[in-house]
């Protein structure tokens, strides 16, 4: 009975999970209270649902696979705290109301979001089941829970993403992979481990608390996060916005790049603006693109691809390179070189960004990677980020956005964000705004010291209930999505940014200069900074604007069932927005952004009529 001790413990876990399911409906995302009156003190008294990993004495070492240390280790140990104490401890670890905002640095805490983490954690623990990390095949089975086609899969781990560097997983990797254990663990951690640097990783005692809290059904969750705290939105554009747009006519990256003769992709000698890209087919001439474009707009299909992109897409200032996470090689990132019609594989995962002066780009995954754009123009097949033109940094959080001041330093902004992977079912409805009162915008300058760029200290500003922050190309504006009183998006908040060198860092002063009460995803700025573009998933409330009689119009039914999203452009000086696309049900126009000369790029994830394709599309709506 070599597994007896472990099996007993597992039963306790499953019992806990079942109890949580009965009372808290965690998968529903509901707000049912759990654990406060749960009468679960007896469970904590049980001594805890350990998963011991000591090799039973009757197992010869060779059966235990890789010769690892045999000291007992546990994934976690149930803590002996009351529900209230446990909630306090868990929220402290998550970063609510603490200086060390480990999780809240990127993720706003909401009931829905924590419930999702909780249910995923339970599912992960169930998948681990009674598998013994000391036995080759069982250690492999454990890791199989968190991989797809051999690639790490963080979205199936919940809070277990915080445990990947601890002893239990180290044992598991060593047994499963033998001498390659450390390499595999490092690879896994690079993809899946949370929290990301510079947040400090959790130690075993903190993991004990977090997993105990999750398996108890997250007691205290609703009391603390049950009421969204955003403010109502009032449309407003203040004078500084108009002044800024006027200044950008001579100082913005659009005119700088034009004066510097940065060549725009698809523009032959003497061609500018809408005259460019004429070598590419009109969307309306493609079998899938009928009706997409407005009357006075031209949409051109720049590239069709068969793999699935992941998360957002961004392009170089000259429009030549288009990048996103991709499934092309199972997992990784792709940079499409439109000029060569070639794809460059990049050893990263997602979150591309390009500097507005057309000199560099960034991707995330296994850390942040920043490279000179000359690397791309050298026509590589693959980028490892070990190239001389690249450097790696942990100073920039995920979902970052980038800017450059003319003749000055570079900037990135990041903070709480909502993952947006539209068209794949996860975020096809109203995009959440799960940003909490601790939300902050974090700005990191990249200071040129004379020979290289060096990441400066992070400069943080509290922006409660706002997230998905985007810097304008000049770095002088920031726009974030804001949460309203009802927990839904109230609109966008625009701030001016004034950065003044002071000692070893910058002083940052931000002021709200506009509110735009429209709904949409993360924005992209035009290079003259007069326009913002964003995508909006089609909801019943959009039915009339799309030309239907209302959400009950039978013709709208397909939109309701299959989803879609459209691209919008907003004039920041007036707040007026126009819709740039009319997508068919099942077609998702996503991640719009401008190139320097005003062409608007976006991708389409096409799930209509059985299709499973994606396209890079360009619009001349502003030209």
């Amino acid at each position, binding site marked *: 009975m070599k597994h007896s001790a472990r099996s007993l413990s597992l039963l306790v876990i499953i019992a806990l999970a079942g109890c949580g399911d009965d009372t808290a409906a965690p998968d529903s995302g509901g707000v049912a209270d759990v654990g406060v009156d749960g009468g679960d003190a007896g469970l904590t008294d049980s001594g805890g649902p350990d998963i011991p990993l000591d090799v039973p004495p009757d197992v010869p070492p060779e059966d235990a696979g890789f010769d690892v240390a045999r000291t007992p280790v546990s994934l976690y140990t149930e803590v002996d705290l009351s529900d209230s104490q446990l909630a306090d401890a868990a929220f402290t670890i998550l970063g609510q109301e603490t200086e060390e905002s480990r999780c809240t640095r990127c993720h706003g805490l909401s009931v829905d979001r924590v419930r999702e983490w909780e249910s995923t954690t339970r599912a992960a623990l169930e998948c681990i089941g009674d598998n013994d990390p000391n036995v080759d095949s069982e250690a492999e089975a454990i890791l199989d829970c968190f991989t797809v086609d051999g690639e790490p899969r963080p979205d199936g781990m919940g809070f277990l993403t915080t445990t990947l560097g601890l002893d239990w997983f180290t044992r598991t990797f060593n047994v499963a992979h033998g001498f390659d254990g450390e390499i595999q663990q490092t690879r896994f951690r690079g993809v899946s481990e949370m929290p990301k640097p510079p947040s400090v990783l959790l130690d075993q005692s903190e993991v004990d608390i977090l997993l105990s809290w999750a398996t108890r059904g997250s007691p205290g969750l609703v009391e603390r996060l049950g009421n969204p705290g955003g403010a109502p939105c009032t449309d407003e554009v203040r004078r500084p916005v108009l002044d800024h747009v006027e200044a950008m006519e001579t100082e913005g990256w659009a005119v700088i790049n034009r004066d510097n*003769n940065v060549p725009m992709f698809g523009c032959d000698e003497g061609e500018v603006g809408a005259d460019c890209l004429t070598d590419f087919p009109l969307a309306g001439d493609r079998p899938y693109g009928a009706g997409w474009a407005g009357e006075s707009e031209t949409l051109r299909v720049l590239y069709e691809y068969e793999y699935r992109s992941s998360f957002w897409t961004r392009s170089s200032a000259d429009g030549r390179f288009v990048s996103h996470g991709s499934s092309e090689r199972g997992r990784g990132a792709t940079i499409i070189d439109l000029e060569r019609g070639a794809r460059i594989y990049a050893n990263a995962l997602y979150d591309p960004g390009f500097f507005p002066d057309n000199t560099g780009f960034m991707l995330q995954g296994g850390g942040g990677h920043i490279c000179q754009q*000359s690397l791309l123009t050298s026509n590589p097949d693959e980028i490892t980020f070990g190239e*001389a033109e690249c450097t790696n940094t942990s100073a920039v959080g995920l979902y970052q956005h980038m800017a*450059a001041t003319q003749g000055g*330093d570079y900037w990135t902004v990041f903070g709480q964000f909502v993952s947006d992977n539209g068209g794949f079912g996860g975020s096809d409805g109203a995009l959440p705004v799960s940003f909490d009162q601790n939300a902050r915008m974090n700005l990191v300058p990249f200071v040129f010291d*004379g020979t*290289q760029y060096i990441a400066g200290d992070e400069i943080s500003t509290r922006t409660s209930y706002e997230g998905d922050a985007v810097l304008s190309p000049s770095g002088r504006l920031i726009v974030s999505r804001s949460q309203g009183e009802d927990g839904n998006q109230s609109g966008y908040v625009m701030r001016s940014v004034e950065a003044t060198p002071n000692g*070893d860092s910058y002083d940052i002063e931000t002021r709200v200069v506009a509110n735009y009460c429209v709904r949409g995803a993360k924005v992209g700025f035009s290079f003259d900074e007069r326009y913002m573009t964003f995508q909006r998933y089609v909801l019943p409330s959009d039915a009339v604007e799309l030309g239907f009689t209302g959400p009950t119009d039978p013709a709208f039914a397909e939109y309701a069932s299959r989803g879609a999203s459209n691209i919008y452009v907003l004039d920041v000086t007036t707040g007026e927005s126009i819709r740039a696309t009319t997508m068919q049900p099942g077609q998702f126009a996503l991640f719009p952004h401008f190139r320097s000369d005003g062409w608007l790029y976006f991708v389409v994830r096409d799930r209509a009529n059985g299709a499973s394709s994606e396209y890079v599309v360009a619009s001349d709506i502003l030209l």
Partner: protein
Amino acid sequence: MLTSLLFLSGVGGGCTKSPTACPELGSDESGLTAPARFVVGEASAWPAESRRRDEAALRSSLGERRALGWDVISRLVEDVPVAAPSGGPATLPRFQTWYGEEDLRRVVQHLHESGDDDYSNAALDEAFEWNRRAVLEFEGWPEERLAEFVDGASEGEGARGLGGIERVIYSPLAARHLLQSRHELAACAAPEPDANLPDGFRTAEQEESVWLDGCGSRRLGPYSVADGGSFVAESEGAVVLSVGGDECEGTTCRVMGPAEVYVDVRARERGRAQIQVRYDEPVALWTPCLIQEFPDGAVILKTEYRRVGFGFTVGAHDTSVTGVEAAFAEGESWTEGQDADPGEDSIFTLALPSGARYRLVAMHAMVKDLDHWIWSTMWWSDSPQADFGEDRPGALGAPWDQYKMCATTWFEEEDTDFTGVTEEIRAASTLRGSESWCSNPFIESGVGAAATNCIGCHQHAGTGASSEEILGGALIPGARPGRLQERNNFPTDYVFSVDVIDELIRALPQL
């Protein structure tokens, strides 16, 4: 606090960077922008006293070389009049008026748009003249904004900031020569650069006279034998010849090219031997990647700036005999230096239009007054009167009196004349024996670069060899890397930073 290192930037040059192109990321390395060029006007020519020097005298006199090195520095930093539209500065140091990548990009673009692709002298005259006033055609620079810009750069650090902080800049003749070599540079940059290869061979004959003790030996060579050529060595005397460890037949050695041949001569008995060598050596153009070698008066300058503020400091390097010896002992590499934070009165300081302030810590000049250039390099010091600053001319006033200098003109010096040279300078300069030495601690920061002499690395420019290959001794087995002559031709005439031209032209839209 600033934490993580980011981009390596700057065009490759010297032994510390890859000689391959490494275009900079970002606007902060901006050079002389279009509005700045409007204020500065045309680049100042290298003074007319430039002339071919007495190479033999320079190779035998450390004092003459140092005087020449200081003369180069003096001419570089000499204040020269600038165009000075109303409100602008009256003068700037000469080097701050020179051309960098920003200027060259505008000129290339203008020539392209004009359809004037022959790059004749007349066409270049017109293009450089247009460049002076290019900003007047820029959308982003209406008259009012330009006037504000001029006012902001009227004096002091703002005026000095006009020149930018571009890492490599070119005198007017050097810039023009590179532009006119665009076809040759493109051919060398091609995947199969034919122009870089020898174009044939010729027969060379040589007689070596060797005196050996009994059982003594001597190695002769290397002899470069061309592809398809042959090598023959014949001995007279009581010696045995061998090549590559294999004893030759009788008194004759034969090798077919291509090969680098070393002949080992071993004595059977004490005495003299005569070795007749006849071989087909490759004939290589002196500078196959340029229309011809750079003209007299061409100067190429590499600068090194450090940001002011943000906790950045300037390394103060010990270049005394003790300090240089210590660098040699540390893997022939310079250390970071002691942190120093000099004020603007004791180091050349400028402010870019963005407000970012920089200090000039080093400047590295190559001047085509000799076939193999004059190499003069200066660096900031917190003890400017010591060692390599001891003989600085008094005419070099502040802030240039805070810099030290070394100079070289050849791979090996044969100094017999030390007139005017202080003991400290003599001792530090001759630590390598007859091998010349001149290494700027700010610029030659790579591993193994502290023991180099500028010319030893630069001879490989245009060959595609990396810094690691040059300094690692991978090019010529047994050679002392980065110091002695290893080539008989110089594809880009010792200039690493030539890729800029090819890249600018390749970036042009297709006609």
